[in-house]
């Protein structure tokens, strides 16, 4: 691994200041993607700014129909949180299925969203629940946050501080994991809210996470798994790679959506 200057600022303002003074800095949250990327030489920053000591970024709070999760909250903590489990059980289930146990002990929600891997789990929950991404300088609605594969609307130096999830009437998540990487070959988050059903698919789209409107329409008419068998999922813009072609991913979107709906309805 190429060498870099490591720093571990204690506050958000210090972290932003270090970033501003460095040539080519990267923030590190849990490091579960960044460190493998550094090991492979796929990124060679001059500075790595560890956000692990920034006190403003930790913690989970539930109030007034909103679950707020600090950006440095580890997946294992979200999975085990009684507050999250009561308010949005599907979100706790999703966090408990990310990667593997060791990854969940280090990986964070902010890191996952900043990286926006097209097969990561959290983007599906953020788009499916219409969450708000809070940064050190503004609030971004889910629909305006994701900007294609590994791309977001974060500006250089901007830090995600928290994610605010509105509590839905019900929700479910189901994924078909790649057996080696544990990333979603397809993962679908379904949320039934007062303003309608949202269906967000990860692992499938060429531009990362996206809403599946044909399924939203079907579920707004009838929020049950069985009628989804008759819905055809368009293959346009779905990924084809060594693991699965677009047709298979389209099929999996339907199957995972049906499972997510069954879970939302309490029938696993």
């Amino acid at each position, binding site marked *: 691994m190429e060498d870099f200057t490591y720093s571990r600022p204690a506050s958000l303002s210090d972290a932003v200041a270090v970033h501003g003074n460095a040539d080519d800095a990267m923030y590190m949250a849990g490091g579960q993607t960044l460190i493998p990327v550094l090991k492979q030489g796929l990124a060679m920053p001059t500075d790595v700014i560890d956000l692990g000591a920034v006190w403003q970024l930790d913690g989970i709070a539930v109030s007034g129909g909103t679950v707020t999760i600090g950006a440095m909250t580890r997946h294992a903590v979200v999975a085990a949180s009684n507050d999250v489990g009561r308010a949005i059980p599907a979100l706790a289930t999703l966090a408990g299925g990310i990667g593997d146990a*060791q990854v969940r002990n280090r990986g964070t929600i902010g890191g996952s969203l900043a990286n926006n891997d097209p097969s990561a789990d959290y983007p599906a929950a953020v788009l499916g629940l219409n969450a708000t991404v809070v940064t050190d300088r503004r609030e971004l609605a889910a629909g305006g946050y994701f900007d294609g594969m590994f791309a977001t609307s974060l500006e250089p130096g901007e830090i995600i501080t928290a994610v605010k999830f509105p509590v839905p009437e019900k929700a479910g998540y189901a994924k078909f994991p790649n057996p080696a990487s544990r990333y979603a070959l397809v993962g679908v988050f379904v949320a039934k809210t007062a303003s309608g059903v949202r269906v967000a698919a990860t692992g499938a789209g060429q531009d990362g996470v996206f809403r599946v409107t044909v399924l939203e329409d079907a579920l707004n008419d009838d929020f049950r798994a069985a009628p989804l068998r008759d819905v055809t999922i368009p293959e346009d813009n779905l990924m084809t790679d060594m693991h699965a072609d677009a047709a298979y991913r389209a099929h999996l979107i339907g199957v995972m959506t049906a499972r997510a709906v069954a879970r939302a309805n309490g029938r696993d």
Partner: protein
Amino acid sequence: MPEISLTVNGEQITKSVEGRTLLVEFIRETLKLTGTHIGCDTSQCGACTVHLNGKAVKSCTMLAVQADGAEITTIEGLAPDGRLNPMQQAFKDHHGLQCGFCTPGMIMRAMALVAENPEPTETEVRHGLEGNICRCTGYQNIVAAVLDGAKALRS
């Protein structure tokens, strides 16, 4: 170079490390604790699993500087007096290893799993071991060993 102070298997250690030094490199090359293995370059195999403040983590996916102030336990820390810990004994009894390369990571992960969930079901053991890859056994005997090791640790 940053200086770090940490506890490894109960021993207080202070050393200088480069920012880029991985925790697993520090454990193996600086401390010469070679029981912790490196089985891949991609953070997938789990052979390097150690405990960081009691939680299982992949020491290849963490910088040594990030362990400053932490308590680390490696496979060597499970048998300080040379007698096998009950989980190690269970792996031996159930033939939970063939080549043995993945075993230190398996056992460290199993110990953390049992600490969190002293009476796991077979499904919970299999889910809990998803981050540890074995190329020999087909996992059957590893799962049997973890279930039996958990039982032995309860008694």
